[in-house]
């Protein structure tokens, strides 16, 4: 099917092109990164990675264990954040609306 026939696909393509355009016009370190407003939640991964790298560098006894310790701690942090997000979603969206209004 041609993109001209599907307005949603046209919209997606135009949004994608606008992201590409803003990426090309981006001045790193001066401007905020483009697209962060939409994908901000993915930043938890580099955040967990950086915290794990610095923390495990001073915690591991043998530096040979550092890569595995970093990977493990990164996964633990991301899993904990996802778990908290799911728990809060269930609380706010599912459980609280079940309570009586009065």
């Amino acid at each position, binding site marked *: 099917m041609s993109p001209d026939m599907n307005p949603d696909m046209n919209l997606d393509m135009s949004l994608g092109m606008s992201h590409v355009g803003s990426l090309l016009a981006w001045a790193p*370190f001066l401007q905020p990164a483009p697209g962060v407003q939409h994908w901000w939640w993915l930043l938890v991964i580099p*955040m967990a*990675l950086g915290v794990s790298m610095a923390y495990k560098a001073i915690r591991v006894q043998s530096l040979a264990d550092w890569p595995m310790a970093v990977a493990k701690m990164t996964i633990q942090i991301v899993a904990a954040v996802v778990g908290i997000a799911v728990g809060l979603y269930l609380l706010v969206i599912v459980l609280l609306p079940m309570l009586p209004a009065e």
Partner: protein
Amino acid sequence: MDPPEARPLPFERPSPVTLRSLTVPAATPEITFRPLGAILGWVFPGLGHIASGNMKRGLYAMAGVLVLFVGGLLVGGVDCVDRKEDRLWFYGQAGCGPIAFVASYANDALLKSGEAAPMIEMPSYPGQPEVFVSSYKGLAHANEFGTLFVFLAGLLNLCVLLDAAVRPPASDAPSVRRRAGEGASA
């Protein structure tokens, strides 16, 4: 007749309790604090370890702190380090050392001066002076995450530089690890 011997009360401890005995396990060796390691660790992340002979550990710590610091500047731009408008955040960010001050200076010199991008007028209350900000100023999630990344880099670098101050020099060398019983194969 002799007076009866004083018996210790049930809640009395047999030996004097010091703060150190409560906080530090008995097997912990004496720790020597080397201020130079902490100072070098503040001058640049990981430098305290490198200067004391723990090169690899210093490079790993440096990589972790710089991932957060550079990542924060990429996400939020230099606007996320601001010692005047975000003073409380900057107290933590300053743990990164001079690079945080350089980023804050770049914010002043490039963004707030209008050097890098045109200034735009912000809405202001009637009767109040006009407010102009850089069109590159970070807003919302980009600014929040950039600020948080650099803040975490500063806090973690404080941990790293304290570790550099108390870690024995050249303690990661293979011969030292063998003496300590680490890395022994079965």
